[in-house]
């Protein structure tokens, strides 16, 4: 699909190079792609791959400290980099527009929705008359499935839900009929149901308006249901490009294949394959293939020579010297794991008739469940369903609750402050955000050693135990002297897990522990938790909104809606034969990876 014969209304990026202004290190190297009218290209990559930086180059925008150093971006026949400051300002919104990750910060809280939309048109003097512009606003509102009555347009951003805010942003982006819209992970903060609706909106409006869309995302499942074409970025380069179907069923590059293997599937319980190592940062990228240090099928030549983009099939290219081997040996799915057998005889933690309050309002109503030894119970639900509140009550972090929480048949006091040392020791909590749960001014060793104070161990024993537990979570002992800001997100979460495990608890409460992490890191953390559950006989309460992930970690699942458990049972039963409508809806809306490559394709080797 070529852009040139498409009336000039599409995007062509050639040899794009973006560098750190201060050091001259490349962030994005030699990126080229095209998008046709009405097409969605997904730019996929993990954090630090340069995907957002590359996408912003379509608007000729340089993030602070970053410089566009080479290449050409042509949007609708216009060379974006050749424009002067004024020309770029004119082009933004009219020729190329942007939908940000967080609509809450993109909309001015002091201005009405209608004013935002009218302004987007007025800036470019679109339509000529106020009457025409008002009609266009109403038309856009209908296209993004929002009410178009004046009453709604008079609302302020805070009177809208997150999903509605994002729709307004999408309407603004498409309002002036731009040639291309850049969408920067626009559904990241949304619940699955809202996400499904927003994705459908994007799909529909892109083809209705005949605009090209560049969808930047780290979430392969989302991409597979949305994009026509997929471009995979790694360490600032496009390593593979092809139609969505080809990428998800017959990926050629080892990185793409392993990335797909790391995504949890809702259909089948399987262990998730993590990619060992870390992506190289700008300035330390190897001269050869950037993925070579982490590649399972590397050969000596990979280290010396950067592979050219080789044509694998029609419209499908990959930068790899070992495409045949990659397709033959690297599975994009791994076999189902042996599900851990929970010791069902007795629940270790039992929650009975739990009601939790914030001030006077009851947010959790009569919740009852039990977690057995060596069992992982997943508590799923959308934001606001009360799932995190439940786990905080069990941990003693929220003290406004009634009901009973027992551990080994001993009733737990409401607040952690009133619990005995043994109780606090036996229940440990791992927080959602590894960037917030470690004190930035304390070393890893100090943070991990803290719970040991409950046991009153002497300093030598503490040091030994800290080193031991770091090893258990696959961190080298010298990490004890590091500060959290020297660690990657995955490493921080490992430290948080080490801190929770150091005093040998019986129960682990995990609050969305992988939601801030990349899929390949998520796979490593989930694998680690499973191992620990097996080896140490831990009981885990795993709070999450990610249904596919539940399949890969839990044995039982409880679905929460509006502070109640609406359905509970074994994972297989609930995910395959859901009984409650709400569960069915969650399952229907969960993004699925449309792969059909259960085993390596033998035909690819010839």
């Amino acid at each position, binding site marked *: 699909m070529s852009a040139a014969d498409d009336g000039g209304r599409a995007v062509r990026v050639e040899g794009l190079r973006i560098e750190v202004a201060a050091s001259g290190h490349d962030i994005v190297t030699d990126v080229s792609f095209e998008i046709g009218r009405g097409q969605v290209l997904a730019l996929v990559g993990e954090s630090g791959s340069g995907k957002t930086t590359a996408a912003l180059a379509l608007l000729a925008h340089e993030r602070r400290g970053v410089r566009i150093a080479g290449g050409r971006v042509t949007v609708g026949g216009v060379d974006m980099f050749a424009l002067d400051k004024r020309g770029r300002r004119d082009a933004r919104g009219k020729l190329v527009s942007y939908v940000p990750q967080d609509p809450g910060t993109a909309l001015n809280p002091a201005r009405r929705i209608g004013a935002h939309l009218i302004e987007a048109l007025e800036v470019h003097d679109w339509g000529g008359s106020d009457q025409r512009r008002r009609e266009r606003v109403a038309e856009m509102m209908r296209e993004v499935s929002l009410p178009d009555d004046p009453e709604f347009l008079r609302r302020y951003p805070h009177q809208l839900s997150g999903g509605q805010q994002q729709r307004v942003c999408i309407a603004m982006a498409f309002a002036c009929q731009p040639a291309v819209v850049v969408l920067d992970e626009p559904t990241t903060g949304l619940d699955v149901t809202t996400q499904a609706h927003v994705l459908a909106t994007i799909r529909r409006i892109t083809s209705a308006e005949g605009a090209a869309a560049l969808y930047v995302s780290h979430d392969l499942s989302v991409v597979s249901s949305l994009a026509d074409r997929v471009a995979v970025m790694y360490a600032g380069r496009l390593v593979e490009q092809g139609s969505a179907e080809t990428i998800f069923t017959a990926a050629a590059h080892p990185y793409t294949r392993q990335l797909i293997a790391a995504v949890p599937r809702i259909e089948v319980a399987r262990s998730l394959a993590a990619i060992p190592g870390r992506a190289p940062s700008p300035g330390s990228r190897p001269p050869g293939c950037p993925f070579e240090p982490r590649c399972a099928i590397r050969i000596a030549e990979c280290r010396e020579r950067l592979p050219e983009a080789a044509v694998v099939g029609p419209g499908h290219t990959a930068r790899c010297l070992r495409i045949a081997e990659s397709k033959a040996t690297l599975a994009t799915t791994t076999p189902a794991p042996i599900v851990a057998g929970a010791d069902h005889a007795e629940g270790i933690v039992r929650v009975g008739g739990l009601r939790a309050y914030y001030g006077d309002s009851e947010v959790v109503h009569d919740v009852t469940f039990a977690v057995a030894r060596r069992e992982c119970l997943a508590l799923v639900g959308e934001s606001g369903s009360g799932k995190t509140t439940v786990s905080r009550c069990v941990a003693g972090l929220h003290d406004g609750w009634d009901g009973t929480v027992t551990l080994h048949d001993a009733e737990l006091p409401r607040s*952690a402050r009133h619990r005995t*040392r043994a109780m606090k020791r036996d229940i440990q909590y791992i927080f959602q955000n590894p960037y917030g749960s*470690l004190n930035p001014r304390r070393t890893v060793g100090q943070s991990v050693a803290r719970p040991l104070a409950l046991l009153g161990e002497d300093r030598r024993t503490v040091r030994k135990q800290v080193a031991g537990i770091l090893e258990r979570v696959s961190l080298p002992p010298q990490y004890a002297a590091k500060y959290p800001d020297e660690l990657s997100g995955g490493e921080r979460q490992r430290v948080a897990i080490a801190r929770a495990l150091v005093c040998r608890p019986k129960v682990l409460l995990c609050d969305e522990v992988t939601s801030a992490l990349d899929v390949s890191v998520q796979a490593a953390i989930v694998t680690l938790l499973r191992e620990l559950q097996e080896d140490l006989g831990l009981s885990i309460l795993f709070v999450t909104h990610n249904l596919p992930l539940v399949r890969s970690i839990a044995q039982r699942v409880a679905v929460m809606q509006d502070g109640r458990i609406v359905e509970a049972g074994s994972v297989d039963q609930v995910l395959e034969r859901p009984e409650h409508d709400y569960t069915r809806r969650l399952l229907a809306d969960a993004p699925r990876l449309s792969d059909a490559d259960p085993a390596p394709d033998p035909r690819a080797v010839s």
Partner: protein
Amino acid sequence: MTIDLAQTIANEAPAPVVRTRGVLRRSLRLWRTRIGLAITVALVLVAIFGPYFAPHDPSALLGRPYQVPSPGLPLGADYLGQDVLSRFLYGGRSILLVSVISTVLGVGGGVLIGLWAALSKGWVDNALLRGTDILLAFPQILLALIVIATVGPKTWLIVLTVALTTLPRTVRVIRGAATSVVEREFVDAARANGDSQLRIALVEVLPNVIGALGVETTFRLTYAVQLIAALAFLGFAANPNEPNWGTMVSQNSSALTLQPNAPLVPAVAIALLTVGVGLVGDGIARAAAGIDRGTS
């Protein structure tokens, strides 16, 4: 599967991380901090060691009142005919000592109450803040004057009064800086661990507001110096006959044109001390702004 991290680390190019252990060290790279520190240290040295270099007894009457500088009296004489240089060299000690002690007391108390308020939230927070509002309603100097005029100019009372007027301002600043820190999850992690409120305040929260604390301390110190000098100027020094930069300014102010050294030398010293400490504070503020480890 386990991940071979040692392998990963070996693969990574050694990225030299220049680690700045603290805001203070980083602030020393700024010229404003260096200049401020030089001025402050110079004046502190004068205040501490000055008396050993004083050519005369500061209370001895050596010349005519307001005698202009002469070889025996390099800075001339004051309103009683005492040596201005000797009184200047003696006069820094008390003002510096009193301001440092009262600042330490005021800021120390303010930090504890501020952290307490931020961690407690709810009605405790409200009660503490309304309490500081009451203290803040009085202008600093007025409050000091009322107390000292009632009880009398005792050194301990001056210290306590200055500390008391410093405290509510520190409470405000520290509470403000700490409110965002107490929302972070590592504070919850400490709570889940059953740590005491005091330990959470001092070990978990305080290190994360150290930038604000550094700035606040220097600002409060400047105000303390000014306040104590002003009190001395108004005649509220513990001993009016004792050499003191503040009293020197007031006692000799009428001779500004006749013998400008007598009021101006101590006045300039006070001004420089304020500027010096202020520059240090500003340097710390700038360094702290760029070093917050809590980036996400």
